């Protein structure tokens, strides 16, 4: 096998800019010392400006997955947790391992619409509802501001909205945390900012929930290198925005070309595309050709693949391999 193209983890295919790498190095040079409170506060301040929310409403962590896991652990004890199906595989995996009751609300092709009214009815007494918005793997924005209003007003529990792909859709409900004490928004710098290996995540929420997390402040914080790099990346978001533009353009081309091959491609507000081929075990067949895409067969049937938008070159390799598996 020659070259392996990895388009399975929704990472950015471009490395961080030199100044961000330099900042991470500075953190590394000083890594015999713990991160200071002022470093953490600096990052919180930068993120509050970037997200247009109060600094006090931001809680930092080493990646958004760990936050989701903690939220699920903390708030799932009193009853049935509600998640979307399919959803970010980590949410499903954590929820299934909790030993608590789960209700999965199935969303299906071609629309992948979330039945909000039915969800509200079911969620009234649920301690926690988790929605990834946009949804992974469908790429669809599942809730709008009105739905979030309705959900927050009708739930007795917590609504967690994961905005891991916010930069690609420019849609957020983060500002709504000031109206709803039961709303949590989680975000990451692993995707558009390209810091997946450094793991910087954050949640935006109100006082009550932050109170529940106060003892986790220290154990969940990111590393010094991660914090330095994140601060540097937020100082100038042009690089990130340029990459998002590039990916959006590439995404458009991928949709066109894959559709021309006869593959069903679903609209996406993210840096990945969900596709339905007519080939069973499509992900595995692509892997045999050296192209690794995400295999969503634990949640959808095996003809589906989820492919990250990579560089133009990577995308072309994917498309030609896709053509090969379609032609058998």
């Amino acid at each position, binding site marked *: 096998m020659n070259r392996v193209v*990895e388009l399975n983890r929704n990472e950015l295919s471009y490395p961080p800019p030199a100044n961000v790498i330099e900042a991470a190095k500075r953190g590394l040079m000083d890594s015999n010392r713990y991160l200071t409170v002022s470093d953490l506060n600096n990052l919180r301040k930068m993120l509050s400006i970037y997200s247009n929310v109060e600094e006090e409403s931001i809680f930092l962590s080493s990646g958004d997955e760990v936050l989701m896991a903690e939220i699920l652990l903390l708030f799932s004890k009193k009853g049935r947790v509600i998640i979307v199906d399919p959803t970010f595989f980590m949410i499903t995996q954590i929820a*299934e391992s909790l030993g608590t009751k789960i209700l*999965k609300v*199935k969303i*299906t092709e071609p629309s992948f619409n979330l*039945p909000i009214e039915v969800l509200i009815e079911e969620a009234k007494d649920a301690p926690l509802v988790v929605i990834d918005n946009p949804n992974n793997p469908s790429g669809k924005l599942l809730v709008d501001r009105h739905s979030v209003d309705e959900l927050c007003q009708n739930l007795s529990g917590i609504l967690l909205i994961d905005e891991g792909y916010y930069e690609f859709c420019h849609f957020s409900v983060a500002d709504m945390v000031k109206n709803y004490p039961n709303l949590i928004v989680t975000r990451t710098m692993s995707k558009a900012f390209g810091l997946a290996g450094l793991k910087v995540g954050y949640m935006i929420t109100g006082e009550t929930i932050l109170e529940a997390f106060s003892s986790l402040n220290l154990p969940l914080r990111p590393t010094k290198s991660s914090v330095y790099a994140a601060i540097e990346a937020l100082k100038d978001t042009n690089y990130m925005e340029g990459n998002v533009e590039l990916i959006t353009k590439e995404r458009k081309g991928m949709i066109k070309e894959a559709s021309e091959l006869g593959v069903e491609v679903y609209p996406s507000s993210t840096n990945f595309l969900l596709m339905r081929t007519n080939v069973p075990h499509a992900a595995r067949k692509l892997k045999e050709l050296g192209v*690794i895409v995400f295999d969503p*067969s*634990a949640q959808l*049937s095996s003809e589906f693949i989820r492919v990250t938008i990579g560089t133009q070159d990577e995308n072309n390799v994917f498309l030609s391999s896709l053509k090969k598996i379609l032609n058998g």
Partner: protein
Amino acid sequence: MNPVAGMGGSVGLKGTDGDMHKKATELGAKPVTQERAREFLSHIKNKNDLSFFVAPGKMGENIVNNYNVNFSVVSSLNSEITSAEDTKRIAKEMLSQDIDLLVFVGGDGTARDIYDAIGLKRPVIGVPSGVKMFGSVFGVSARAAAEIVDELIQGNISIEEREVLDISEDAYREGKLDIKLYGYLKVPEVTGLVQSGKEPTRTTPSKENQKAIAQYIVENMDRDTLYLLGPGTTTKAIADELELVKKTPLGVDAIYDRRIVGENLNEKKILDQLKNFPKVRIILSPIGGNAFLLGRGNQEFSPKVLKLIGKENIIVVATRDKINKVKCLRVDTNDMEVDNMLKGYIKVVTHYNEETLMEVT
């Protein structure tokens, strides 16, 4: 190979059960099984690692002969015209050859013949070549069936019991679907254990999933409620969990206080039971590849029964894998009012402590 399977499709006969293939030939239908068999054989990558036992003449030998594979012919044909009896006889004889997998090329009718001949004694995969193929014992295509053979060689499979359906061709020709559950065949299922970098796909083996569902249902059973347990392998797992040895595989049994109080009930017997028990719930699993919840294979739950019991007393169970493969559940009870009552959303128990909210259309 059923040499006449699929011939009815192009000439609008809906099938070739019985003598209908003669009519299909008169109408100019061309055999399709041979083409499907070729497609199947040419897509098996590891055919040189296999020993084939093939049916004689046009039931297999004539096609396999064109490939450079190791094969021996099982049995012989008494006449130029083959029949369901030949399929059954040869399938039975193949059992004595210590085969790992029986591959048949045909449709639902052929699947029933194979079931009659070998039951659950060996894994089976159907190369789809019939007209209807509502059953779920077929590969999605001839090529997919070939891939299952390759996977079997590599050991990447689990075995599941899948439904063989009995569809009345006469009714089908009149535009009606009269489907009954005929039995189960063991079918290899390619496991989704594909490791794609960091992100693993997690599939729970079907048996384990069924057991988890069964445990959940049994733990939550009320002692003062009569449970009507419908057909299916997941409902069978519930009977097993209750240690009930006599669950009717294709019919409805009544359970009260963890004991069977009625076996293989028809509509009338169910209605009688309803008179005796104030609290009654139905436990159902979607049937076949089309995710029919009611109206296919479980007509014992008639519109009258369903009206009396009500949607809120229907418990639906299905494995995650089954649910992943369908967009929604379907109902077709022949009664618009009952269908409308059942439509909307329903919760399906998909694991221990886990339900999936699904649309019913």
